[in-house]
């Protein structure tokens, strides 16, 4: 890849992320139109896209973002307010930029011009014709600054006869304020009493703490015309963090409180009575109050900078292409496999020395494995925020009022799982908004609040993550589902189904009870695909619903797809593994037990009959049953079902390998893993086996 291409690729990546931030901020801004932080975030996203877009030759993009930025600049300055129209237009602009990024050359130019004209119009109506000029000037200035932000201490002492030169020191201070965050303290102690003062002499001087990215030259430029008529000293307070970031250890009081030797309340009382160091200095006449105050201002500003920097540090991260991570995970997977071989070989040889090394390798490998898998963990929040947009657009389209609530956005899941979870979730949320939530009028008539709520939550539960999508809409109509299922010959008219079984029917292919098909959902394709996708992720999906109250869909997913904790079993000479999370318990099954069941595949577990699937038969592994077999009891969708195997080997760290193309269609097996001795064990697809019967 050429250098230029690499740069524009990096720009694209960055821009996509910024657009995501933009969208989230806009949607939140719609709810809190006066939130200065959100306005700032929108402005910054646009500003960054504009700046780097121009740098890498995406002039179309930067032209558009410039107009958006101009309008948000006015809003930031408080000269205009956020309107729904603005949010709509900005969302559109975001979409257009996204399409401009992905398809160079094939951009809807008319749309772009429309948007540009729209934003120009908004800017003009905010501030009259002048607004445009001001914005253009200010933005070209901001683009020039590239230096990092630093903190400066400036002492500016104009010569006493500065007024005679026609210079106004206050104007200089104003210019300084424009450079960045600025605290100014005037020292007035040299002003004499009225009878002796000369009104045309300058007695005042200033201490200024300025945080700016314009550099020392930018500051000097301000004073360029009075340079010869003043004393000016400029010190850098935090040159690359050396001066101000020195760690200071805890104060005495803090240590005592921490040790429990002093209660926080007592400390408060003592501190209240204690005079501050500044006060002591002033009282003893050692320092003028304004000097102390100026020093305090400096201290405060530095604290703020430190705080800001600390926040930045916690957010510090490096950008790594995800395929590099995938390679890393694959390598770790190989390593885990080889390590298992090493451990096995070491124990077979009985070599103490080798066993010691193998143990060491095992420990390191497991640490490496955990931290590598951890790198791939991403908070699900990014996906959640996409749904805000979805719900907003859908409810507008359908004339409904729907609010989306999210909880647990910080819950982390494997990157691949999150990516593959997107489509099923979109589908479920569409269904909720389209079929679940009723129209505002209907809701009011039913005594519900006007706007419906879709609640998305994610939480950890052991080695799984549970995601729920809950709406307070109409709920599922059991009778309609039953009637439809009978019509489609899925159940007989006399079938008695539990609520859970009945609801599970909507996952059947082509099942839809919707009266009319809308552009959004109702065709009956979907819920079956949703179920398949979730199961492909080794997850489960379940529905509960109450008519008139709402529907809740629960999805349980494994944390990661790369390595799982599993149970290894043996049938004949073959090894199989199954996810440990599915296993409830293991039981012995003797030939006598089998005879007692009269040829039916039922095991008596403490008085309860549990059906089991004889895997030896299922996989056609011959008929030489050993005297004692084992039933591994699993629970799937609330049903306890056993799997009959020859013997249970134990827990196993399974690195999942997908099967070759030829074997994709094989039922009952979802993948394979390589064992310590180099042989292959198949991973059982338990839900599929159970479904298969």
């Amino acid at each position: 890849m050429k250098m230029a291409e690499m740069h524009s690729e990096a720009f694209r990546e960055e821009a996509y992320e910024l657009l995501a931030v933009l969208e989230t901020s806009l949607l939140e801004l719609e709810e809190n139109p006066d939130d200065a932080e959100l306005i700032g975030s929108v402005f910054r996203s646009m500003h960054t896209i504009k700046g780097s877009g121009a740098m890498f030759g995406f002039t179309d993009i930067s032209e558009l973002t410039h107009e958006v930025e101009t309008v948000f600049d006015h809003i930031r300055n408080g000269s205009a307010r956020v309107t729904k129209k603005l949010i709509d237009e900005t969302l559109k602009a975001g979409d257009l930029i996204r399409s401009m990024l992905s398809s160079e050359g094939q951009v809807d130019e008319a749309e772009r011009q429309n948007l540009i004209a729209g934003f120009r119009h908004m800017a003009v109506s905010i501030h009259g014709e002048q607004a445009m000029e001001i914005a253009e000037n200010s933005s070209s200035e901001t683009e020039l600054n590239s230096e990092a932000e630093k903190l400066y201490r400036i002492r500016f002492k104009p010569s006493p006869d500065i007024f005679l030169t026609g210079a106004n020191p206050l104007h200089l201070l104003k210019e300084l304020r424009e450079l960045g965050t600025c605290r100014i303290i005037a020292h007035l102690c040299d002003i004499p009493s009225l009878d002796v003062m000369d009104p045309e002499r300058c007695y005042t001087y200033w201490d200024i703490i300025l945080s700016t990215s314009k550099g020392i030259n930018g500051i000097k430029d301000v004073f360029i015309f009075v340079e010869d008529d003043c004393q000016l000293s400029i010190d850098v307070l935090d040159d690359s963090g050396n001066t101000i970031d020195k760690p200071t250890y805890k104060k005495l009081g803090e240590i005592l409180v921490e040790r429990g030797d002093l209660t926080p309340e007592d400390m408060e009382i003592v501190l209240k009575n204690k005079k501050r160091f500044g006060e002591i200095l002033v009282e003893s006449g050692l320092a003028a109050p304004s000097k102390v105050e100026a020093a305090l201002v400096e201290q405060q500003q530095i604290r703020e900078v430190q705080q800001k920097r600390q926040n930045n540090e916690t957010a510090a991260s490096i950008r790594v292409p995800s395929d590099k991570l995938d390679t890393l995970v694959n390598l770790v997977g190989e390593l885990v496999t080889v390590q298992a071989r090493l451990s096995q070989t070491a124990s077979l040889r009985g070599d103490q020395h080798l066993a010691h090394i193998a143990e060491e390798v095992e420990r390191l490998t497991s640490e490496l494995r955990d931290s590598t898998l951890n790198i791939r963990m991403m908070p699900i929040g990014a996906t959640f925020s996409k749904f805000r947009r979805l719900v907003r657009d859908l409810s507008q389209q359908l004339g409904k009022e729907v609010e989306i609530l999210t909880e647990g956005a910080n819950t982390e899941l494997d990157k691949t799982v999150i990516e593959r979870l997107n489509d099923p979730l979109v589908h479920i949320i569409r269904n909720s908004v389209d079929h679940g939530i009723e129209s505002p009028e209907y809701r009011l008539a039913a005594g519900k609040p006007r706007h419906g709520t879709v609640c998305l939550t994610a939480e950890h539960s052991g080695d799984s993550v549970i995601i729920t999508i809950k709406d307070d809409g109409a709920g599922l109509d059991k009778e309609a589902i039953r009637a439809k299922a009978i019509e489609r010959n899925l159940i007989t008219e006399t079938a008695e189904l539990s609520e859970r079984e009945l609801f599970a029917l909507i996952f059947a292919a082509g099942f839809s009870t919707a009266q009319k098909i809308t552009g959004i959902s109702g065709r009956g394709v979907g819920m079956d695909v949703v179920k398949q996708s979730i199961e492909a992720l080794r997850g489960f999906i379940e529905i509960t619903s109450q008519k008139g109250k709402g529907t809740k869909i629960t999805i349980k997913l494994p944390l990661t797809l790369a390595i799982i904790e599993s149970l290894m079993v043996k049938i004949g000479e073959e090894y199989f593994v199954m996810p440990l999370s599915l296993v409830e318990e293991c039981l012995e099954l003797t030939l006598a037990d089998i005879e007692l069941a009269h040829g039916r595949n039922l095991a008596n577990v403490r008085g309860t009959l549990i059906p089991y699937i004889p895997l030896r038969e299922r996989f056609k592994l011959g008929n030489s049953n050993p005297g004692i077999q084992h039933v591994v009891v699993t629970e799937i969708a609330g049903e306890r079902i056993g799997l009959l195997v020859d013997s249970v080997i134990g827990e196993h760290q399974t690195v999942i390998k997908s099967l070759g193309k030829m074997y994709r269609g094989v039922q009952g097996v979802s993948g394979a893993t390589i064992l310590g001795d180099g042989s292959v064990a198949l991973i059982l697809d338990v839900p599929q086996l159970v479904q298969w019967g």
Partner: protein
Amino acid sequence: MYCSLEQSEETATLTITGSMTIEDAADLKTALTTLLAGSSLSEVDLSAVDAIDLSCLQVLCSAHRAAVHSGKKLALSRAADSLITCLEDAGFPRQSGCLQQDGVPCLWQEEKRP
């Protein structure tokens, strides 16, 4: 700048209108000297002042200093918002006074928050 002096029994009030710039500094000094010469309780009403520059701020500060020295009181009445911005731009507002005398607040001192 236009000044008018009003004298009541206890208080003398100097009302200033217009903008206070370097050209007015000398006049302001004279007006303030007259104000302080009279009553022991003086007030300067700046509510109709739209802008003030450094030279005039210095004169006000100096007058306050003179008042304190001679045991008199000089106070500013509520100023317009634009004037407060002028003061802030000049870095005048402060937490504690410059005068190293107990209990005498500075002319520019912010009211202590409870």
